[in-house]
């Protein structure tokens, strides 16, 4: 089908289904197959806080060149249920294909765009030869078909399946391979070729998540104790640590809550081991009090906050960059802390390693702000991307106690040499109260305003010293560009591709990505941005936390912001479009789009009408009783298409106003 494939940028496969359908395994097999063939893969899993059911939408982008985000397209779709088809079939682009289990699911041709093939695989029939097989085998059939269409090496998948199911014995492996083969063959007979012709590099590369690379970076830098309480999306870091504990020599402690977690890490840091803990926003909130303690006690400790959608429990399985304010404002009073946000999965490794060095060199708590996007979604990284030879800098750590040792000595460089507890010849108390050079409290009997002042200045002065030791921020692209895109942390990859798209579209754009949030490299950033003609800050939260931070630190007010806070990450196309809108003066509208009206209607249907209806028509109307325009959504039965009723949705507020029933077959009461 004459599609021109730019395989450097890749092909994107999406799998839609419900939690418990096992589609993560399928995606994994696919991605590993690609990765072993020498392609790059980047995965993104959009899922919910639910163990079974709900809607999962897993995408994998495969490419010959390394891509740092999931991209804009959906080229292939595997639909494991009708829900997925209705939500996403239309996204599949011409030249692409939709696979579904025709023994179970109908695919309404109306949902399939022109130029898209759709192939129903008769899973029941195809698996018949294998006797009673598990429902997840539908995935394996699909996988086989997909391999055919993608023109991937079936042999490689065989090996991946052998590895994946190795622990279950040869029979299971053989069955899996045979079933995948059945799907492959069926597609071969029933599908037009895609015309995809990969250049396989043959280089086998790691396929890792940011949580894993944070783990690796930390252990490479000497991590010895990891404490955690499970919390999405940081849980997989805990699991990684537990799994590899013996191999990497790290003690792992799952504690009773995050208060315990952070205080254990601080205790361990105080004792002299490199210690880390991990959580997400809500757990981080519980940790804040202790972060101040670590700082006044001058204890090195690293706290990883893998951010998710807030506020509060919020969107536990969605990504957001919403905790900058929290990290900056953690705990009472003024004290030095470092906040850094890794900019890629590879950078997670080096950020974690650097965090441990900075923590110990400056005897401060370091907060790593990662997020669900980086933490949970794997991508292929280059095989030499991660270097275990981290230079470990333990700062002013003394192995013996000097005569007259003072733990909190006021020194010219504001760092007090550390002697670890257990060292003969010394003894001191680390206190969370203000104290003198030896640790004697000056909040109690020995009040002392002068020492207090100098202690506070000493601690705060470390921020300047830290600044000196950070890698300077780097502008990417021409200094003279018309537009400067400024992002922080995990968005580097997607902004990077948006810059390419915009450049291609003829706009001159450059890009500054901020990794070090605090202390902030204000001088350097100001210098870089002083040349910018139009600054657009891009971040994944609703108030523009970084834009505000930038203004607070430099006085620079972003000319515009591109904010997203619906739980989904940016795509390059979204940024490109938003930048073009801004540059071309198109106003941002917060109105509910047709697409969004569809989502709201789907929600209404699922909650109120059960699963057998769907929205089909959208019309904007004005009605006398409403003080805003309305989306009038027509809803029909899923099977027969019979009209069910209309739903009124506020265009401005998003409110679901009324449901007018046309037919009596509604399954649930409406009120």
């Amino acid at each position, binding site marked *: 089908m004459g599609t021109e494939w730019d395989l450097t940028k890749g092909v994107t496969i999406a799998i839609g289904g419900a939690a418990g359908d096992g589609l993560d395994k399928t995606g994994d097999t696919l991605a590993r197959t690609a990765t072993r063939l020498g392609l790059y893969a980047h995965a993104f899993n959009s899922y919910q806080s639910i163990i079974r059911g709900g809607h999962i939408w897993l995408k994998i982008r495969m490419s010959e060149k390394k891509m740092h985000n999931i991209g804009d397209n959906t080229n292939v779709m595997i639909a494991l249920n009708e829900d997925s088809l209705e939500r996403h079939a239309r996204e599949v682009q011409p030249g692409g294909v939709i696979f579904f289990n025709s023994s179970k699911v109908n695919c309404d041709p109306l949902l399939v765009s022109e130029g898209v093939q759709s192939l129903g695989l008769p899973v029941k029939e195809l698996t018949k030869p294998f006797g009673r097989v598990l429902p997840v085998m539908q995935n394996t059939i699909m996988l086989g078909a997909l391999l055919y269409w993608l023109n991937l090496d079936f042999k490689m998948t065989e090996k991946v399946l052998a590895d994946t199911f190795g622990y279950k014995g040869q029979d299971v492996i053989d069955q899996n391979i045979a079933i995948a083969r059945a799907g492959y063959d069926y597609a071969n007979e029933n599908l037009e070729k895609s015309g995809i012709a990969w250049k396989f590099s043959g280089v086998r590369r790691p396929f890792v998540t940011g949580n894993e690379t944070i783990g690796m970076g930390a252990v*490479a830098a000497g991590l*010895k104790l990891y404490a955690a309480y499970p919390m999405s999306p940081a849980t997989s870091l805990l699991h990684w640590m537990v799994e590899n504990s013996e*191999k990497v020599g790290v003690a792992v402690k799952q504690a009773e809550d995050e208060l315990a977690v952070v205080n254990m890490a601080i205790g361990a840091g*105080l004792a002299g*081991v490199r210690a880390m803990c991990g959580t997400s926003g809500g757990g981080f909130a519980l940790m804040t009090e202790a972060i101040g303690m670590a700082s006044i006690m001058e204890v090195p400790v690293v706290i990883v906050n893998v951010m998710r959608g807030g506020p509060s429990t919020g969107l536990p399985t969605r990504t957001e960059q919403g905790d900058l304010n929290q990290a900056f404002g953690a705990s009472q009073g003024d004290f030095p802390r470092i906040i850094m946000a890794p900019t890629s999965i590879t950078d997670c490794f080096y950020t974690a390693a650097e965090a441990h060095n900075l923590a110990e060199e400056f005897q401060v708590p370091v907060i790593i702000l990662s997020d669900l996007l980086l933490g949970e979604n794997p991508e292929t990284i280059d095989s030499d991307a991660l270097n275990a030879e981290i230079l470990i800098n333990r700062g002013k750590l003394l192995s013996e106690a000097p005569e007259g*040792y003072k733990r909190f000595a006021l020194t010219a460089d504001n760092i007090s040499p550390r002697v670890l*507890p257990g060292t003969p010849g010394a003894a001191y108390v*680390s206190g969370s109260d203000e104290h003198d050079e030896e640790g004697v409290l000056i909040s*109690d009997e020995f009040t002392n305003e002068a020492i207090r002042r100098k202690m506070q200045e000493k601690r705060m002065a470390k921020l300047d010293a830290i600044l000196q030791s950070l890698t300077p921020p780097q502008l990417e692209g021409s200094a003279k560009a018309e537009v400067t895109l400024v992002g922080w942390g995990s968005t580097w990859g997607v902004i990077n591709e948006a810059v390419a798209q915009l450049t291609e579209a003829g706009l001159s754009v450059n890009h500054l990505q901020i990794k070090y949030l605090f202390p902030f490299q204000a001088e350097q950033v100001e210098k870089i941005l002083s040349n910018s003609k139009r600054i657009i800050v891009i971040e994944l939260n609703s108030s523009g936390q970084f834009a505000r931070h930038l203004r607070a630190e430099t006085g620079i007010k972003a000319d515009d912001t591109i904010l997203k806070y619906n739980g989904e990450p940016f795509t390059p196309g979204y940024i490109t479009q938003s930048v073009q809108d801004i540059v071309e003066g198109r106003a941002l509208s917060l109105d509910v789009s047709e697409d969004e009206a569809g989502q709201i209607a789907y929600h209404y249907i699922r909650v109120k009408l059960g699963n057998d209806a769907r929205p089909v028509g959208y019309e904007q109307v004005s009605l006398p009783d409403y003080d805003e325009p309305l989306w009038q959504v027509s809803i029909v039965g899923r099977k027969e298409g019979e009209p069910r009723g209309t739903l009124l949705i506020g265009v401005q507020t998003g409110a679901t106003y009324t449901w007018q029933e046309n037919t009596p077959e509604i399954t649930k009461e409406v009120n």
Partner: protein
Amino acid sequence: MATVLDREQLTVKVYDGAVDPDWCPGCGDFGVLNALKKALLELELLPHEIMVVSGIGCSSNLPGYIHSYGVHSLHGRSIPVATGLKLANTDLNVIVTGGDGDGYGIGMGHFIHAMRRNLDLTYIVMNNQIYGLTTGQASPTTMKDVRTKTTPRGNVELPINPLALAIVSGATYVARAFSGNTKQLSSLFADAIAHKGFSLLDVFSPCVTYNKINTYAWFKERVYDLAEEDGYDPSDPDAALKKSFEWGDRIPLGLIYQSEQPTYEDSDPILQRGPLVKQPLGIKQSVLDELLAETM
């Protein structure tokens, strides 16, 4: 380099902290401090081998009055901090000290979970049945009907029973003492520190300023030494539980319960390699490559 003491040079004065305690004259915590020093001497522990960890409260000021390593942490968080210290350096003798508010109030969750974990920590609670440092509010051990600044009509909540909680939660050494009885106190301290596993020492330590009910005299009238009771067997959990509820006219002091159980550190293969703080840092590229290979 600093001169290091020999074990033979140890005297009780060696453990004197940098400053004198600033507790109110007569405060029960003096007795605890003195007894603790004696116990340390009895165990011949050098100052650098000791780590005293506390929270916040009058009683939690104790680490500042002992010449040893110490942490004066956050209100309610002494146990987790101590846990981290012990996990990081199993060579340290980690002693946790604090008050009833600190340990049984805000710290209750950590208290229970530490006991089921059975890490080798010694936990000394200076139980004065009041919040001392914050000037006299009801604590979790304030008796029913007692008037305090926050219970002007008498406390309406039941006090917790730390001994019973400890016994049912898996603490392997549970004792009660009284600050007015230094001798028993220091011998229990020594036993508790020597005990492998989590030990709880609930010590009646009168607050002479804010608790006018549970005074030295009040306790003296009531306490008796369990060791002198015929046939009491501290290895019997049922008997121990029963004993833990004895209150009123007669209040038992001494070792209530003890059992031998594997400690947390004995059960963790990583800690079996020796103190974490002495382990080499970092990993070889080959190990990293192995970790990466698993992802391919």
